[in-house]
């Protein structure tokens, strides 16, 4: 199994005086695999996810994507990588309540410079696939929590990312919707991508190929 994403000796702490949340942490994430990051609250699971997703800068160590160290790159390059190679599902969906469902789904594709028409077509396919049965023009505030999380999942998948990072994607969902989300993550891993999920759910962890405890 090829290594898609690697953490090499990652160290990170919030603030100069605070003790580091992560210290010299290393792991390798292969393509086609889904990995669960588990552990009690405050152990740095989400922080690790954001370090791997190039949203935080490690104080030491590096993140390697497809053999290239990327955590030390310029901010603009990392932003482009986030748009082109990464997909994110946040715990609270983090949708833009002022925009329509389809605008939310296509947001990342627009940062990549992809055509709006293509992005909308792909977004509609994903919404259909995940059973989001609401008009695409509807606002996120007018849909249920489960639908919002599926919309966030569509947004993460619209660019067919090489790495999909999900922060407690089923945290606020009923079992049926959780199954839909987990199945979608597994399906994406099956395309050869790396999927990393932060979760407290034993069921989600059990559905993963590997579990890393923090």
């Amino acid at each position, binding site marked *: 199994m090829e290594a898609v994403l690697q953490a090499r000796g990652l160290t990170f702490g919030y603030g100069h005086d605070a003790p580091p949340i992560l210290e010299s942490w290393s792991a390798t994430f292969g393509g086609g695999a889904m990995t669960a990051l588990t552990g009690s609250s405050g152990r740095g699971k989400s922080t690790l996810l*954001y370090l791997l*997703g190039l*949203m*935080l800068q490690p104080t030491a160590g590096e993140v390697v994507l497809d053999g290239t160290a990327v955590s030390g790159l310029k*901010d*603009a390059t990392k*932003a*482009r*990588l*986030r*748009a*082109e190679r*990464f997909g*994110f599902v*946040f715990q609270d969906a*983090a949708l*833009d309540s*002022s*925009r329509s469902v389809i*605008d939310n789904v296509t*947001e*990342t594709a*627009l*940062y*990549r*410079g992809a055509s*709006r028409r293509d992005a909308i077509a792909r977004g509609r396919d994903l919404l259909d696939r995940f059973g989001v049965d609401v008009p695409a023009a509807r606002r996120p505030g007018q849909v249920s929590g489960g639908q919002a999380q599926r919309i966030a999942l569509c*947004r993460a998948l619209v660019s067919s990312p090489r790495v999909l990072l999900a922060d407690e994607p089923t945290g606020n969902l009923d079992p049926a919707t959780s199954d839909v989300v987990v199945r979608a993550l597994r399906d994406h891993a099956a395309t050869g991508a790396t999927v990393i999920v932060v979760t407290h759910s034993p069921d989600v962890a059990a559905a993963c190929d590997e579990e890393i405890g923090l």
Partner: protein
Amino acid sequence: MRVGALIREARASATSQPVPSIITILMIAGMMIAVMLTTGRSVGAEQRVLGSIDDAGTRTIQVRAEVSAGLTADVLDRIAEIDGIEWAAGFSSATDATNTAIPDGTRVPVRLAFGAHLERLGIPEQSPVPGGVAYASEVAFAQFGLPDVAGSITTSTGSTYGMAGTLQTPDFLKGFEPVTLVPQPDATGSETVNVLVVIADRPDLVAPVSDAVLSVLAVDDPTKVTIHTSEALAQLRAIVQTQLGTFARGLVLIILAITGILVGIILYGLVTLRRKDFGRRRALGATRLLIVGLLLTQTAMLALTGLIVGIAVSFAVLLANGDPSPGLEFTAATSILAIGTALIAALIPALIAARREPIRELRVP
């Protein structure tokens, strides 16, 4: 991100925050109204005053040469080489003429006219009839006894000219009234010129152009040449323009500065309110430059809307009150300044928004 997508995102961002957007539009509109109804009105009045001064002939230089001075028509060729001259023509000394049909009628002075652009006086480039023709002012026609603006005149030297049309007597020829001119399109350049009229491009060029004209007169006896300019009037014009212009510029700068500060505060508040929005965008791949571009585009759109509203209201008020409007040039310049001020005011909030760590902003409750 493509430009179309950026504009669409900026428009969506503006409509998603209606209160700060409307306040920004009203600020810019208010600024524009304040500028147009104060400075703009002053500029309009200034233009009227300056126009009146200009009508009085601030740009005219008149050279009078006695016949013995030796000023000839070829001086116009030399004057044509001088920069800063709008128009020039030469006129011979006057010869008496009468209506050919009334030899004992009123004697009216007639002058030969030299120059390449006599259309300014109402004399066409090509003569409408063959042979020598003359053009006269309404006053001259009346004195000739030609109320129908037709007929012919005969000079005391025996030359006869058909009357071809009416002259539009400009201010600088009012002193010649009653004016009758005989254009000389085929002049050799050796003809004697008695009066030379030169109009400078701008009032402030009157003095240097006068010096230049004097240097190319090439007369036999300079003591028999006198030059009359409206330099004093031109200086008065410059003083009026400087005084009013300084006041107007000062007021515009004050209003722009106040508006810029207020727009900056509003946008800083907007950026603070939308920390989570910017955090999400950054996390999903928006670059810092894109965040800056998004806020500046949004600001430019709001400023443009405010400008349109402000200009429309201002012109309506000026029109309703019968006040002078400042004109397109002032309005365009003020509009560019207003948009520039709004963009500069938005730059600091935009940079602040772009510099924040995405995930810290996303975690804002």
